[in-house]
């Protein structure tokens, strides 16, 4: 077994919905609310709640603009959010690597 510490996992990103938002924004750079909602297959309400949590944590930045007369809410991943995602992925990789080395040594067979 590894000395895996589950408390070191970012709780915000343990939710698949928030993980999807953060990862999507990591690729998109910036996206409007409906794009984030559609990409993550969430309802308006769910998307709003998760985006607000990410915003409160400083992972996501929101800005508003007008396209013609129509207001548009845009979201982008902040540097804090990007680092959190990278740390989360690194953590997941540390979970896989010991398993791979154990398998290669025949310990799990």
């Amino acid at each position, binding site marked *: 077994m590894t000395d895996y510490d589950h408390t070191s996992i970012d709780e915000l990103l343990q939710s698949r919905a928030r993980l999807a938002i953060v990862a999507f924004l990591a690729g998109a750079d910036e996206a409007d609310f409906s794009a984030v909602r559609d990409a993550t297959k969430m309802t308006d309400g769910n998307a709003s709640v998760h985006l607000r949590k990410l915003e409160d944590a400083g992972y996501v930045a929101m800005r508003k603009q007008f396209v013609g007369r129509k207001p548009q809410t845009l979201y982008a991943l902040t540097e804090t959010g990007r680092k959190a995602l990278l740390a989360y992925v690194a953590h997941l990789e540390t979970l896989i690597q010991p*398993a791979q080395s154990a398998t290669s040594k025949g310990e799990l067979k």
Partner: protein
Amino acid sequence: MTDARDDIAFIRQAIADGRTFALGRSPDILVWGIALAIGFFANYAALKYGAPFSIGWIWLATLILPWAFTLRRAFRRSHNAGSVLVQAVSAVWIGSGIFLTTLTIAANWGDALREGWMNAVAAGAFGFCFFASASLLKLGWMRFVAAGWWLGEIGLFEIRHTAEACLLSGVMMLLLLAGPGLYILLRGARTTP
């Protein structure tokens, strides 16, 4: 451990969808694919059946209009140019577009277009653009499009002295440029992680 692998796969897919969304905000590839296909089909028709006017006018329109579209969008989004990767991809495409346009003008000036190699060069350049985009954005399917362009390049070189080279180029513009452009646009509009 499977959960961790699933999570990483899920993250990769969501990031790829985000990148496709970022690309999908620009319908340039679709516009260029359709414009160039029109140019090649018109050229084929002119070679095969004759034309009441110089085919150069069609080519002029099919080059100027998409350039106007691309440059207008490029200037508009200059204040918010997107991620470094998306900017790099734009640079690859715009740089290749300038290369192909200047080469076409120079070759036309020197009356070298008659030798028929330009279609194959254009196909090779598009292959490069798709391959670079695939590598930068980690969109694996684009590598297959690049391979299609490079296979087409060989075919176009083989038939470079025939009117069918224009027909094949037109089909490739529709299938391998407008097609991926439409796919990106649709995926960008409705991404699904």
